[in-house]
């Protein structure tokens, strides 16, 4: 069964790199993309055009986003009884200790820095794929809904 992954990322270049790296690493991923925090929450809550959206098995979240930023989206996800069980990984260029600490306080599952170099970007996406899609046990759709 394919894994449903929601990528919340406003940079078209980073979206493209992430899509390609996941495609290389794992063909059983359906990657969905939201380019701002408001669209992400609408997808997760299946509002409007997203009424048929699947529940993601896994979320990759940038911090700096238009409309609603990643910190607020993370807080909404982790305050929601149904959504909080979805592993949510921060992938951001921010190396600020305040952002790292705040993300863990809001119960991000882990915090990763987005590399600037192409090969390092591919490596980090492959690490995410290896660890979260093959080693970790993710909550099943049925029970967590």
């Amino acid at each position: 069964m394919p894994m449903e992954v929601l990528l919340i990322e406003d940079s078209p270049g980073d979206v493209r790199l992430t899509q390609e790296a996941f495609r290389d690493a794992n063909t059983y991923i359906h990657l969905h993309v939201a380019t701002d925090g408001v669209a992400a929450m609408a997808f997760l809550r299946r509002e409007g055009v997203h009424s048929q959206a699947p529940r993601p098995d896994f979320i990759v979240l940038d911090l700096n986003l238009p409309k609603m930023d990643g910190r607020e989206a993370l807080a909404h996800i982790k305050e929601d009884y149904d959504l909080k069980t979805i592993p949510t990984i921060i992938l951001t260029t921010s190396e600020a200790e305040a952002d790292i600490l705040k993300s863990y306080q809001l119960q991000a599952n882990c915090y990763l820095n987005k590399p600037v170099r192409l090969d390092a970007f591919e490596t980090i996406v492959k690490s995410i794929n290896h660890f979260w899609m093959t080693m970790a046990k993710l909550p099943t759709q049925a029970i967590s809904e």
Partner: protein
Amino acid sequence: MSPELIKDSEDRNMFREVFLVEDSPGDVRLTREAFRDVNTSVHLHVATDGVEAMAFLRREGAYVHAPRPDFILLDLNLPKMDGREVLARIKKDDSLKTIPTVILTTSEAEADVANSYRLQANCYLNKPVRFDAFESLVKSINDFWLTKVKLPPQAQSG
């Protein structure tokens, strides 16, 4: 950044304090050996039941000088206070909740997986039964959590 500064910051972050909460002496031994093989900068601390784990984390009694862990590996089935209760207490405590806490258990029950994520476990892993698989899992934990992941800073969160 000058090479000296880079070296300085690497030195400061060189040791990783890893806290293993595990009652099986065999699994403690395997975890210790696997970490020793993959990462010599890991300081592994062990508690064998949930009550001892909370005393370590809160620096009570004999643990007054215990370091704050950078990372916790928590079994679910433990004597005295089980891992679910330990997890709930860690994640309700404002100063402890930022420590990445990864469940490492033989339980494959979907209820345990879902409840652990609901209690805000950072990740859930099954403990393999085969020796080589156990080693490779510890290596993966080291490669991902202790190498790639940015852990919360010690100073602000300690």
